[in-house]
């Protein structure tokens, strides 16, 4: 069965879902049934009928007000995930890449539209480097702006789409332990951001230190378990260095930002800050509109040509069709050079669904686990990359490690298959305790 997702105006879909009886007060936590789980795959019913009353213009970008509803009404969001997951993916991309309101972290600017100059919403979220501090110290509250090292702050940032706001880069190695490079041989670099819901939850409940996490796992913390609110979101971005003089043609096709990155010597000692212009090659977006979260990833369309990572599984036709229409609507912006790779809502394949089903596990077809991989972020293990499964293993021990064989967190590396990563239903975590799919928590440091 092949589902046809004739693209409607995303705004139309959102409004339709709202009018269909989902006008509930803003909710802090979701009461939506757990759709998209292994035992309850996403519904495959067609889109909701057009509402009566004034109709928004067809084939137009949704307005900020329309997209923001997805952050205000959990039922609306969950229904869109279930009924039109690709539209949901693009909605999240638009929302997080909306120009940010100056002076307020994480708030989209209603006076601007996508592609307008300045940092975008997710760039103003908390960088994980601001959240997980030395000795597990409590991070400053949300509104405190990021601290840029003086030697970077005193440097004029290169002209970019983000404006003069310096971006801190935090890692150069993917979760499989390997880096990937662009066509000039430079390593792709990453940073991770948390929205206010995630940050406040971490800060309020002491999850910014290893000991705080262990306390919750052991039952002595302020909360019975780690369970982020439905409004929680994170992004992981992948970037490549761009030479403002030599890479003009490429710069025209990348969303760009000024960035700084710690250069270390072989022994891990700080050498200096490397600064420069970076172009966005990939963007993971995760959103807790389902109990098992929704996993969305976008890539810059030239990645296959301009980086060394090649796509293993083609983007499904249904997704390409949605991308084509959205890219036309974004033609006046650099975001037209980005494409949705996929949306993952389920551990297992859902044949016939444009999500999950098309990302069929071709390594072990009988296993039927769904796959999703970004060539920039899961370059070398795309055949066994399942965001939802790997993140389901995010966990913490109930006590500090003492012996060499003790683990602080359950390993996400399964052996016995090739390559050795988890796909399909997540494993039993015992004796570890779940961190609610949030692997960024493993950046927490010990207070000792």
């Amino acid at each position: 069965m092949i589902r046809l997702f004739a693209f409607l105006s995303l705004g139309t879909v959102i409004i339709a879902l709202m009018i269909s009886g989902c006008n509930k007060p803003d909710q802090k936590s979701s009461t939506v049934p757990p759709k998209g789980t292994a035992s309850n795959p996403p519904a495959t019913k067609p889109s909701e009928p057009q509402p009566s009353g004034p109709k928004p213009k067809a084939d137009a970008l949704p307005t900020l007000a329309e997209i923001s509803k997805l952050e205000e009404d959990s039922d609306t969001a969950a229904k869109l995930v279930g009924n039109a997951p690709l539209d949901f993916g693009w909605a999240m991309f638009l929302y997080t890449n909306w120009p940010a309101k100056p002076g307020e972290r994480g708030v989209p600017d209603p006076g601007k539209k996508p592609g307008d100059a300045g940092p975008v919403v997710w760039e103003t979220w908390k960088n994980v480097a601001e959240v997980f501090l030395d000795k597990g110290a409590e991070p400053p509250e949300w509104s405190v702006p990021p601290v840029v090292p003086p030697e970077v702050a005193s440097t004029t940032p290169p002209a970019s789409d983000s404006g003069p706001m310096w971006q801190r880069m935090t890692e150069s190695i993917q979760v499989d332990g390997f880096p990937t490079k662009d066509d000039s041989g430079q390593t792709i670099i990453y940073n991770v951001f948390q929205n206010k819901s995630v940050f406040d939850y971490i800060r309020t409940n002491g999850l910014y230190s290893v000991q705080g996490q262990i306390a919750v796992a052991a039952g002595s913390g302020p909360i019975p378990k780690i369970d982020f609110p439905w409004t929680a979101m994170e992004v992981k971005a992948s970037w490549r260095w761009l030479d403002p003089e030599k890479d003009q043609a490429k710069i025209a096709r990348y969303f760009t930002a000024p960035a700084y990155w710690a250069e270390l010597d072989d022994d891990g000692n700080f050498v200096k800050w490397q600064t420069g212009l970076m172009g966005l090659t990939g963007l993971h977006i995760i959103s807790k509109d389902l109990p098992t979260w929704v996993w969305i990833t976008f890539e810059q369309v030239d990645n296959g040509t301009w980086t060394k990572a090649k796509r293993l599984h083609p983007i499904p036709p249904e997704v390409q069709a949605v991308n084509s229409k959205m890219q036309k609507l974004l033609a006046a912006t650099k975001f037209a050079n980005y494409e949705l790779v996929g949306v993952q809502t389920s551990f297992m394949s859902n044949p016939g669904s444009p999500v999950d089903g098309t990302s069929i596990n071709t390594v072990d077809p009988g296993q039927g686990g769904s796959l999703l991989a970004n060539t920039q972020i899961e370059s070398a293990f795309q055949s066994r990359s399942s965001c939802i499964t790997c993140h389901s293993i995010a966990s913490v021990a109930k006590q500090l490690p003492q012996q060499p064989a003790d683990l602080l967190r359950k390993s996400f590396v399964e052996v016995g298959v090739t390559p050795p990563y988890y796909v399909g239903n997540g494993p039993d975590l015992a004796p570890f305790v779940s961190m609610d799919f949030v692997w960024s928590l493993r950046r927490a440091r010990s207070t000792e």
Partner: protein
Amino acid sequence: MSILSLPRITFSGKTEWNPDTTNNYDTYYDSATAAPVPPNVSRDDYLGTLKSQVSDQGNWNLYGDHAVRFVDTTISSIQLPTGGVTSDPLLGKPTLILGLVWSDGKNPPARLVDVDPYGATSSQLFFDSFQIGDSQIGVTGKRVDRFSDRDFFFARNLNLDNQAMIAGKMGVVWQTAFPKDQLTWNGLSSSPALTAFKQAVDASDAAGIVVRFVSYRTQYFTNCKFNGKSITTFEELQTAYEQGFTGRNPAYSAVLGNIGVWNTGKIQSGPSDCVLVPVPKANVPIQGAVTSPAPAAIAAAPAGSKTLLSRQQTKLQSSAAAEAASTPTATLGQSQFRVEFDATGDSGKVVLDFINAVPEVNQQLVKADLGSIQLQARDNNDPKKVTLLGNPVPYATYNREAYTSGGGVLTVPFAMGASALKNGTLEVTAGPSTTVLLKERPLEVVTDSKSIYLDEGQTTPVQLTVQDRGAITTKTVLVISIAQYFNGALIATASSAPFRLTDTGGNLLPVDANFIATIPVVNGVATFQVSPTMAGTGALCYQAHLASNAVLFPPGLEVAMSFSNIRNLPWDDSLAKFDQPGVVIPWSIVYENVLKVYDLVYPVMSLVIDLRNKQAVDGAGGQFRRATALDIFESTLYMPITREMSQRKRNILWRYLQQVEMGGGASPK
């Protein structure tokens, strides 16, 4: 049933070997401490030395990753009890030995690892599955035990064309087995031959399938390129390394193998039939037109070159010189046989596993013409009495074509002499003087514990089985004598013994004046325990005999004997102070003591993850932690590939990685 019974599937092709060769040299690598020589050398200086000495030392593959692959290896024949199969979709299908890898990739390789990196008789293949056919038609076996090498034939290729180098003259056999419950069958409905094979495997007296193959005529410098130019000599290789070459220089062997039914009650690694051992120094002249090179031309490898077979180097070079000086002669390699008597018991056939028996004379794999080969039985009670068995086996029956198509199996029917065979031992003769080249060794000690790794303080059981003419012995007055060898030499005193041998109750095995231990055989089996007394590599050698008899062991380990190779891992007591909770482990300790040996001796690893770089190691911490866990020791995912990491070093690494985790992971702070 066994390889020598039907059904039998034969495969042939090539094997690609890509070992790292630096650890073969005690001037570069200390196998007792598992450290580079000298230990405090920098990476640049160490690699610089290696590269500058390639031409002189013959170190032919600095950047090897120990990968092993079957190349163009396909199923070449199928023999069923009803006869040879001439048409079946299984014919021509590939045969693959497969590992697992950390990243996406097709047909990941197995890994070749020597228990004793300096030696030539302790190789193993770590792998994860063995695929016969493909996912459409075939059978795949999940690994239960490694392939270990055996039946070494150092002079298998007589090299009359003077083209062989390094280990090119050697032939060696590999064997393992796969239980029924580890087999996955595909396409049975499409392949009558596969169906017939499976029916035999499903029989109640069958345990699964056994795979036995030989590697021979290894060739070097056939597939190495740098900057678009082929590298064909040591000198070119050295120049390439010095100019920055970090690529592969694999070797290629011919391979011929058989897949048969694995009998219940038989060990996996063989032998499972009667054993024929070469008669020392016996040889026969080669018939037919052959060429013999001038003595000077034999030295194809660099003067002073250490070959892959460091300890065997002298033996190889001296035997090569002897061959060149006189009329070419040949002997036969260690083999097995099985006797099937007809219903009357007066006649039958001898089925010989000659997969590694008859030498070749050149790179074209022309078989040495020994003339007709004749079987005979020598009377147990009257050693002068021999009875011929069957007709002479002419050259046409064991030439290259027959060898390849028949999987090296020869069948010799006999109409008379059954009684002589039952009351005697089989011999294989050849040459104008009817020289006995192979003699049956009726009592054979067999064990699946061919390759053992021992950590400090570790004790491991070893089970030995005594076969009497291929069947588990029922004799009740047998013992097994066990000799210890260390660095290739027989150990004669307790103070120099690398192993402590005890019975299952922990009591030391009794030893005689020559420090030879004995253990009684009960119902054909003897079990003892071994633990290390010092770091280093050695072997335990076994002989089964009547308790009333005495046996001698040679001063140096001889390959025709039954033995287990053992590596006692380094005793890293100096690191004990770091192996404590709460002790901060500096990165320098981890690099210098745990990772440096891999960075230097196996530099290909740092091309994957730079082991000298803290951030790179920290960033792959989850993988390092998983890859060094002993529960995957048998898998190709295990790192270190060469299996020399001690538990102490593992602890240091793991405690360090815990520190990294407690510090928030690998991200720069």
